[in-house]
């Protein structure tokens, strides 16, 4: 089993109700497994906000040990590279660019 | 010898006033003095209407009416053709303002700042104006003398509508473009021999 420190920042904090928690998961868990576990805890709204068509939505920025999840495998990213793993989930608001 | 001149491409000028502002900030002119205005003229009737944008400045004439009219010899012509006013000699008759066919001469009755009344620090440092005298475009002679052979209005033009150079050098860009586009001065009938040519 591995310890996973999860930090919620931005808009997702209201859904999670907390800014930080620790989750224990099987050793070979991926980011997808972690998000499924969190959805089970916080309900479908959690997944609706984070995922789009089964992948990380543009505006859901997830970092695993300081690296962008999308650049280290996205949903299949491993969580066991550092113990305890630190996963930061930042849900950005809508875009603010151009007119 | 050198005779500085400018070619203004009326096909390219879009009337954005960048030259007017570049000139004003480069030469620190007081409130109300614009050496390099851009005039507008509507041509044709609806719907075949066009808007002509016509930049103007001092034409640094060969036979300068302002120089001729000035009783105090405050206006002189450099060997490179640039016509300058010396505000320490001008006695403010304004004969030059009346004589200039191109509206290039400005008589400054009071030196005012852009915010009205008292000058702000920037203006105190950059204004070079004496009340009761006249002032006008100098082809940015101070830049030419410092080796920057491009007046502020030319450098800043976003559509490359202003070309500056030596009229007496047939190989210069300005000479070539005047020949190829058969550039001609404004109001040739005034007979002042301007150094500024318009490309229509």
């Amino acid at each position: 089993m591995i310890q996973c420190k999860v930090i919620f920042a931005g808009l997702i904090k209201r859904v999670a109700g907390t800014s930080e928690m620790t989750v224990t998961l099987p050793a070979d868990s991926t980011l997808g497994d972690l998000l499924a576990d969190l959805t089970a805890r916080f309900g479908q709204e959690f997944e609706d906000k984070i995922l789009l068509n089964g992948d990380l939505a543009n505006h859901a920025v997830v970092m695993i040990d300081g690296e962008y999840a999308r650049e280290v495998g996205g949903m299949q990213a491993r969580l066991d590279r550092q113990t305890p793993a630190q996963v930061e989930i930042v849900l950005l608001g809508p875009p603010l660019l151009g007119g | 010898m050198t005779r500085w001149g400018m070619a203004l491409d009326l096909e390219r000028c879009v009337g954005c006033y960048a030259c007017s502002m570049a000139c004003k900030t480069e030469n620190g002119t007081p409130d109300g003095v614009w050496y390099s205005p851009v005039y507008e003229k509507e041509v044709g009737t609806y719907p075949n209407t066009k808007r002509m944008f016509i930049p103007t400045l001092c034409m640094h004439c060969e036979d300068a009416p302002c120089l001729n009219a000035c009783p105090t010899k405050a206006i002189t012509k450099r060997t490179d053709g640039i016509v300058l006013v010396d505000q320490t000699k001008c006695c403010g008759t304004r004969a030059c303002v009346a004589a200039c066919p191109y509206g290039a001469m400005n008589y400054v009755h009071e030196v005012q700042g852009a915010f009205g009344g008292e000058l702000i620090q920037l203006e105190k440092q950059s204004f070079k104006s004496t009340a009761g005298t006249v002032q006008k475009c100098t082809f940015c002679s101070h830049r030419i003398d410092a080796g920057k052979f491009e007046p502020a209005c030319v450098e800043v033009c976003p559509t490359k509508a202003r070309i500056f150079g030596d009229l007496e050098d047939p190989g210069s860009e300005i000479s070539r473009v005047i020949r190829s586009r058969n550039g001609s001065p404004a109001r040739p009938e005034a007979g002042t021999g301007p150094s500024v040519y318009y490309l229509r």
Partner: protein
Amino acid sequence: MAVALPMAGVKEDVWIPTACDMCYNGCTVQVHRVDGVAVKVEGIPGVGPNYGMTCAKGLSALMNVYSPNRVQAPMVRTNPAKGIGVDPGWKEVSWDEALDLFAVKLKAAMDKDPRSILTHTFDRYTYAVAKAFSTAVGSPNVTMGSAGIFCGNGTHPVAFTLTASNEIHDDLKYCNHLLMFGASAGFVGGHNAMGYSVEMQDARQRGMKLTVVDPVLNYAASHADEWIPIRPGTDGAFALAMMREWVIVQDSYDKTFLKLHTNATYLVGADGRYARHATSNKPLVAIAATGAILPYDEAPSDEAALEGTFTVDGVEVTPAFVPFKAHLEPYTAQFASKITSIPAATITRVAHEVLEAASIGQTIQLEGDTYPLRGAAISWYRGISAHRHAMATGQLMGQLNMLLGAVDVPGGVLNSSSMGPTWRPNLDPDGFIYPGNPLAGHMKPALPRRKVSAPETLELQELFPVSVYARAMLWLGLLEGEKFGLPYKCEVLVQCRGNVMQTSGDPETMAKAFQTIGFIVSINTFPDETAQWADLLLPDMHSLERLTPLVGNPNNFTNSASVEESGTWNFQQPIVKVVEKARNWGEVLFDVAERAGILPDMNSAVNAACHITGEYQLRRDQKYTWEDFADRWTKSTVGGEHGLDYFREHGYLKEDKRLAKYAYPMIHHGGRIPLYLEHFLDAGVAVKEYTDSRGIEWDTSDYAAVMDYQPCTTEKQAPAQFDMWLVNQKLPFMAGTYSAENPLLMDLAKRNSKVFNIGINRATALKKGIADGDEMWIETPAGKKVKGLARLTEGIHPECVSAPGMFGRTSAGNKDAVGRGVHFNNLVAFTLDHMDPVSAALDSCVKIKVSKA
């Protein structure tokens, strides 16, 4: 002026590079500082995006920084009453008191509901910090003011459709005939104003034909080969007639492009939906020769059928191009002529000229690849966007380019911010491209499809699944939020730079909306209309006083495809300090985040919003200075060795010229773009479902797969005697409302002698007994009356009257600007029935009646 004497005894005489802020293009400039006083602004020869040139606004920036009318110190409001022209009764307080008050109000709002905090800015370079602040407090509410109400609604969603980038512009290097609707790009206006102006004039002198369609003889039309005056809001009909001429009459359009790069071959049923593969759910196409039915990505694209009928699982289907072509049928040149007032012969002639210039089928070799070469392109901007059917007209403009095959290919309309080394070509499940560039990565384009959900944002953005923004809806969210299901009211508005009160629709409506906001903080350089509503007014630094990293980003806003030079990174560095107590609003937000106890989240949000990676990321448990953050952001984005020190020393960094494959990505990214807007259908259904469930009247008729012309609301509603339109026109020497604070720019506006007058067609004026220079009345159906001096002109449509720029100010630092000129926005009916329910554009058609005063 005396002959320049050498400067004797000079202590300091330096040129300091920075980035201009007098519009949103961020040109690289250098400021001449002598003995601590900034005396001149100039461009830097050869350095992009302006290559040494600077416009009148940039050159006059010193008059803004040195203006004695600036906000000098933090002030709190003592007069609780708020209203247009109501004196707030400012009382000066210390920065400490101000920030404490700010933090207290912020925390109270966060405790109530974090979403009740609205952050506003139009400061393009530090958007990300405002975005991060809003994310840190836990609110989705960020807004921008007028640009999102009038300009981009018919452009940005279409730019994403065509090129998966936020902006588009035309490749003037190869284009031979540019047809421009409602814009003055290339005439010191719009994006990349300076660089594009040189390109435009070079192209025109190379022989490129320019045709401009606009009710007013604007700056572009003045030089165009042909100006086509048009009734406002009717551009869509002109576009449809051109398409009909190409597709039905000439049967000459880029069939190969449609097959390879669009969904014209996707099979659709009678209900307009794609026929999909039973298991993979992929849209199906039919092979023309054999009639075989295959998923789109398994069939050789150029063999897929564009026409014909087929059957899938017993259901009759046709390629999407069939209903697209059919819907063009009614739009004959005569029909469009009645709507647009453009002679039918002109419509057909222009269609032929553009088609011929496009030279469909031509190719060109660039850097080892063979690209389609198109000689014609269609460009558009605010003129067609500020209308009731902005989305429809915008899509039609995009479709004109698609039919010519002129999208992201040499000579066509190009992406201007998606491609470049940071592009990650993403395809949605149906094969359509969407942005992978992290800067645009968090965008919300129409594809991949977005669900409609109960609104959580004050701009009700959730009800606009195919738009990118919904700025114009802010007033509706503020005033009638609960009707739309918003579970909160707006408690705090954090307003940083941008005059939303004056630049939105009519100020009375915005005033009612602002009345509902509990506490307003305005961080502003001038006491403008919006600042008058603040409860707390904080002195913002002018751009020549502040440090701002990454102003110019070559992967954004400019596509250096057609420019010999490369793109340029630049930044703003402090040149002078004029207002002692002024502070950089981004820095203020960091401080307030700390005082409100959300600094860890602010740092995480900044990392996410600015896409800061690796060692440069802000740690959650640390407080960083603005300078440190700026250095980290710069290094993370541009590359480790190019931090603030590099920029302080060199001022800018030239990016190498963009490769052809990034400039012209259509043949490389392998994705498709939707000609047939099938995704609009379900979006419309979803919006209708939600609005019906809340009993809200919401017109979803524009959610169609093919776009039709419909008149604007004002056209339908206005009584007969309101027989004319008031149109607005941008000026190359004025931008936003802060340029009215600049006495030199105002002086230019007065001498221009058209700005503060009302332009009216000479023939029309004579008919109405109005002579040049007479005072005349303009009156709207809603009873608003404005007076001004008539200026007779041949350069405007006979049914139109022009009030250019953004004037008629009610509050400004420069008293000379107050009450001078017409405030166009004030006459725009800011009601829901005047707004595009698909793109959230506000219809700026103002029907008026004119009379001699």
